[in-house]
């Protein structure tokens, strides 16, 4: 039975969604998608899925809004008016009704006997709990030797499932991010080589010189505040990256927060300054190296004689430490890839708007 606050938040979510669909002014709709992300993150938090809420908060509040705005600057500002059509409405209505009919068979909300809460999830949680709650330094060891089942021993079970038990899936996700970024780069940067940016700004020389001092001066408060806070954003991203073993956090969240800090720098100080601070070549190498780090850990374990991405072999004296080391390296790879991917997409979208 959902809590009253969840019902209230869902009602907010519903009204925001209806408003987004009905508004013609796309800028207002973009703002409302920001509210939608914030509401979703609040809902996830209340449902106890804090890692997911973390990612949703970081992506929705900062990075996604920025991307939607960049897209708006490349396309139109108002929705293209179309005449109302009846047939799509009927098709969508029938599909929606079929989906709702399908959910009638699903287990109740929070039912402990649901299929997803048994079998594999229960087994993972049981292994980890046995290792964590025995207060014994060698508990993780005995959990392994006694039952032939390997415990990871991290307080944050989500990270251990993400990076160790389901490491192959996460490897696939990082590869998907990598491929998607390549796709975005090819789509958005394909024609850019014909006109380089330096030549464009030199041609506007006279107008730019007259306006520059005023623009630089009038943003002084924002510049000072940003200069004070961007280091904190980066520090916090590093904290989230390495604290992901003990609390909510991990590679994806840290990467997005880091990218949000870089994007903030770019938005306030200008895209050219940002390009000189974080060149695109560094980002490209970053994306590749994150993926290679992840795959490299797997290959090292292959070459050492175990399965692919089997972290036990990384430290033969104490396999639990091997697991911790493996998860650390793997999350680092994920964080690097996500950071560089988000920043590259921002370069692609924002840089194109200058033409």
């Amino acid at each position: 039975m959902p809590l009253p606050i969840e019902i209230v938040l869902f009602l907010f979510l519903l009204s925001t969604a209806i408003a987004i669909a009905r508004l013609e002014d796309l800028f207002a709709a973009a703002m409302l998608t920001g509210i939608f992300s914030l509401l979703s993150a609040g809902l996830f938090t209340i449902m106890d899925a804090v890692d997911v809420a973390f990612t949703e908060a970081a992506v929705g509040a900062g990075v996604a809004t920025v991307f939607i705005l960049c897209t708006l600057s490349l396309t139109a500002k108002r929705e293209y008016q179309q005449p109302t059509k009846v047939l799509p409405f009927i098709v969508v209505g029938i599909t929606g009704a079929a989906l709702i009919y399908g959910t009638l068979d699903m287990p109740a909300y929070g039912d402990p006997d649901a299929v997803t809460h048994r079998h594999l999830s229960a087994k993972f949680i049981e292994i980890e709990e046995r290792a964590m709650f025995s207060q014994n330094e060698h508990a993780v060891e005995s959990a392994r030797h006694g039952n032939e089942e390997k415990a990871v021993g991290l307080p944050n079970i989500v990270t251990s499932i993400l990076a160790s038990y389901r490491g192959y899936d996460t490897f696939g996700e990082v590869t998907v991010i990598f491929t998607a970024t390549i796709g975005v780069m090819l789509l958005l940067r394909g024609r850019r080589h014909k006109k380089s940016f330096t030549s464009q700004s030199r041609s506007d020389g006279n107008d730019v010189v007259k306006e520059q001092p005023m623009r630089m001066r009038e943003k002084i408060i924002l510049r000072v505040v940003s200069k004070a806070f961007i280091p904190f954003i980066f520090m916090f991203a590093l904290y989230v990256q390495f604290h992901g073993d003990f609390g909510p956090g991990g590679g994806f969240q840290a990467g997005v927060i880091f990218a949000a800090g870089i994007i903030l720098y770019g938005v306030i100080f200008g895209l050219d300054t940002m390009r000189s601070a974080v060149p695109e070549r560094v980002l490209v190498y970053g994306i590749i190296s994150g993926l290679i780090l992840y795959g490299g850990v797997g290959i090292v374990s292959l070459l050492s004689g175990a399965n692919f991405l089997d972290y036990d072999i990384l430290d033969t004296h104490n396999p639990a430490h091997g697991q911790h080391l493996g998860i650390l390296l793997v999350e680092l790879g994920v964080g690097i890839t996500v950071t560089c991917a988000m920043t590259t997409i921002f370069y692609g979208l924002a840089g194109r708007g200058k033409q």
Partner: protein
Amino acid sequence: MVAVLEILSWTCLVVGPILCIIGGIGLLRLPDFYARTHAAGITDTLGAGLIILGLILQAGFSLVMVKLIFIIIFMLLINPGATHGLAKAAYAQGVKVESEEEELDAATD
């Protein structure tokens, strides 16, 4: 001593949301964009500050208190900066200030 802290924290946790709601009502009813930034500023700094102060008094001396202090510092520094940027952009776009003084000047001319 503990009772005093409890009473203080409950007071903060009750007064804070009331101020937030007052600021929210101001956001809806004030006539002018710049006046609305004042109303939003009340909720962002005083209302939020009191609520988090109440939470600080609830938590002991622990890591939780340090994080809450960080949240307050960030909010008190970031939100006015964002509001400033917003008001500056609105002014540059030509959003007009509606004040009653203009009507008074016109009346006394």
